[in-house]
């Protein structure tokens, strides 16, 4: 009976319809000064929403979800900004000229347990499009970001992922050290067969470095 009713209702003449999708996002526009090639604008927690400003620093972010969102603006190596914005459907939020602030430095030093050697790897800030390679003799990664709270995700082939969090003020300095373990914390399954061992150590049959 219910099915017949539904069929009858669906067969009723009806035409036209409404589109609500255009009203479920908005647009943010603004202009940054002093931009360099590293400059970008993104929506925090929507890392897919990212754009780069033009040579004059003008930018437009489309498809920004409605409501209160936060923008992350990386202007250059020394300047950046986080901005709270309220977005309305199918409307443009004009930010105008965005005042830059000195960036804070966020450094992460990565090491591996059990004498395993790090081979490559990246560190990314969760909820942002920012990602850098681990490099240097001390296996470090650094970000120049506006003050705020961040979570860094460390990913190295052959080792388990790890995260570290912390908050930093504008123009401040923040350092974290992360020691990675083999996956599941059980040395030998991947271990040195993938990563190799630090100088002076040898990868054993059980894939540990000694």
């Amino acid at each position, binding site marked *: 009976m219910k099915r017949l009713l*539904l069929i009858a*209702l*669906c067969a*009723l*003449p*009806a*035409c*036209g*319809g*409404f*589109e*609500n*999708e*255009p*009203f*479920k996002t*908005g*647009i943010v526009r603004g202009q940054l000064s002093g931009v360099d090639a590293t400059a970008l604008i993104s929506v925090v927690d929507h890392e897919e929403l990212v754009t780069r400003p033009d040579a004059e620093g003008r930018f437009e972010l489309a498809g920004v*979800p*409605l*409501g*209160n969102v936060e923008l992350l603006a990386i202007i250059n190596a020394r300047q950046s900004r986080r901005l709270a914005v*309220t*977005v*309305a*459907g*199918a*409307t*443009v939020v004009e930010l105008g000229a965005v005042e830059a602030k000195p960036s804070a430095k966020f450094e992460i030093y990565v090491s591996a347990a059990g004498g395993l050697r790090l081979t490559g790897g990246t560190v990314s800030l969760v909820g942002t499009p920012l990602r850098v390679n681990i490099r240097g003799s001390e296996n470090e990664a650094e970000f120049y970001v506006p003050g705020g709270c961040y979570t860094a995700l460390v990913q190295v082939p052959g080792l388990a992922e790890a995260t570290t969090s912390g908050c930093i003020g504008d123009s401040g300095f923040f350092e974290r050290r992360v020691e990675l373990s083999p996956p599941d914390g059980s040395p030998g399954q991947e271990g040195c067969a993938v990563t190799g061992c630090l100088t002076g150590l040898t990868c054993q049959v059980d894939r540990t470095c000694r």
Partner: protein
Amino acid sequence: MRLATLLVVGVAAAVGCAHPTGEKGGLVTVRASADEVQKAFSGRRFALLIGIPKSRDEHWQPLRYATKDVEDLGAVLQDPLRGRFAHVESLITPEDTTRDAVRAAVARLAALATQPEDVVVLYVSAHGTLARDARGELERYLVTSDADFHHVSQTGLPIDALSKGLEASRSRRRVVVLATCHSGSGKSLLPEDVAAELASRKGGVGLRPLEEASRASIVLSASDFLETAREDETLQNDVYTHWLIEALTGGGDRNGDGAVTATEAHDYARRRTWVFSQGRQRPSAELFEVGADPVVLTGDVRRGGQPELYSYVPRLDGFTLRVDGIERAELPGGAAVGAGAHRVELTKGDEVLFSEDVDLDVGARVDLDGLARKKEPFFAMTATGGAFGFLDATSRQQVLPISPAVGVSVRFERVLLKRLSVELDLSGFGGQGGLTFNPTSPAVPFAWSSVLAGVSLAYQWDWRWVSVWFGPRVAGLWVQRSFSLDAYQGTQSAFSFTPGVLLGGALHLTPRWELSVGLQGSVVVVAVDGVSQTLGFAGAWAGVGYRF
């Protein structure tokens, strides 16, 4: 305990009535063809008369005149100069008046009639009572000679069974007369629980009406419900039956055509019963669609009778019939007047329901209710204001908010059937508002306009000051939304048929002006982002109407 009398006369055969026709503002002419009159008075007559003076259960006191009622009525019906009934069967002994015996006798009576024009009369003078039936509903019962006071529903005979028993008859002029009552006094005695229930109620008792059992009937009651019907030592009969017999012997021939019909006899007995009982016993009458007078009980139509004006419908109860300014009858009831043009009025106090010049021919029988309705307004035009909207909150936030509306409706009453009305409505609504997709973001501003047009087929109940109607409704809903935003400019529109229901009511301030209210509920199919949704849609309105 004295006995009360309830007289129920069921009559079939809607033949031979004059058909009133009217010209608005002019003389209303009422005529009956010779064929119609002749057909109305033809047919043989059969009767079953049952008197149950005593039940085996001594809770019910013996009736003094039940047997005599049967004998006296039988004498009139069998009189070759009066009733000339072809067959009259009388049952008065305990053996002949058991539940089964009465059922069998009713079946025999039903089988006697072989033509629709045949008249069938069933008369019972006995105790009546009320009891709960197997479904728990309060039911009228006839106290047969084998009835048990403590088991009425198992041993008594449901009153409905009498009417139903006659439905097998080919006659369309069935007359059932029950000289019983169920008031707890007079001709009835009630079980304690039923008596206590009745005593605690000030209104009706919710009994299923008898006409459900037999549509082909006129119901003439010796007393209103819960009134006491009485036997009387002076009259030596049941009071109502006494006057009924007197009417049948010729006194009831109101229009002087030589015959006494069922309603003529009832009107005669009704007036005299009311006077005799000093207003304590008010016989009443109801005519139903199929059943209609004239059903001749005694005499023959020897000449064209005087035109008669009558009504037995409850809505006209208490109105006074005035003819040429002279009070002629209190409704329910009727009066005979001379042929020709008359000023006919129905009044109650200062209220004048009907006042028209009516041209009455010899033999005409005019139903005042029908006459009055022809002159009553039959359609109302109403200016309405109200609000419409989706039933679910999501649609109100994201499709269309609740909207104020103005409109007009036209209600045609008595379309095809007496209680059927058709209502056409047209509403327009619009405004400005916002769509909300995220509670933390500003609403999306937009403007909308809509048109809602519907047609309803409703069953309508009318009281003196109030009418209520309810029925299915189908409408077309068109909605347009307009946006002027930074990133979107344009309009969107949708149309849908919306099947649903309508509940309406009107308070008649005057015969012409009314205040009305309505509720509409329907289903709308709307496509949103390419997905069709079936949504509930409702509206409420109030308005002021004028009846034409």
